[in-house]
């Protein structure tokens, strides 16, 4: 059973919930038209971030399956409210754990999605050849799905892989 969560809104569409261990997580969906700047669908793009807001335990949060379930519920609520929206998630690579994060995100997505969503994975490569996994999640019924997927894939295109 998911935790009770609350929508506090704001510019970045914030949600939060508290676990049985008194860990508070916050999730944000930040509007990011920059990513597809100049594209007619740019206003539908949101970056997705989740982080611990409060943890007074002094330890890393324990494994809690209800957390993943609650995040999935929040995700669905966000898309149900705005079915044309699109979420982008980038895996931080500052500690070289980007592939582990991508794997965890994949596991979460395929465990909790209800076949209403599609996830597209891409790798952005910078000029130093560093790899940054990026995923896009979109509802299958999004009327602009083909155009948005094409624009997202174009993001990762560069001279090196043509």
């Amino acid at each position, binding site marked *: 059973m998911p935790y009770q969560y609350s929508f506090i809104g704001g510019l970045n569409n914030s949600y939060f919930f508290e676990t049985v261990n008194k860990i508070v997580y916050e999730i944000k969906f930040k509007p990011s038209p920059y990513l597809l700047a100049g594209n007619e669908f740019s206003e539908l793009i949101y970056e997705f971030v989740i*982080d611990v807001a409060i943890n007074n335990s002094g330890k890393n949060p324990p494994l809690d399956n209800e957390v993943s379930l609650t995040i999935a519920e929040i995700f669905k609520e966000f898309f149900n409210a705005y079915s044309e929206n699109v979420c982008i998630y980038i895996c931080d690579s500052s500690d070289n754990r980007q592939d582990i994060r991508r794997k965890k995100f994949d596991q979460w997505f395929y465990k909790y999605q209800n076949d209403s969503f599609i996830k597209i994975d891409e790798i952005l490569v910078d000029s130093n050849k560093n790899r940054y996994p990026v995923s896009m999640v979109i509802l299958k019924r999004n009327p602009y799905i083909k155009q948005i997927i094409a624009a997202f894939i174009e993001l990762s295109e560069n001279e090196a892989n043509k």
Partner: protein
Amino acid sequence: METREKKKRTTDEIIAYLLQSKREMQEEIKRDANSPEFQEALAKLRELNNNRK
């Protein structure tokens, strides 16, 4: 060559934007937790949770 550099720079810019944006949101989450509005919303959520028990 000029086009290639331009395209490459754009990819770098996109990555930099995404990482910077993510960091900013993570910092915002830490700040949110200390705001009176957040504490008030958290108190309401705890009340809801208690009523569900």
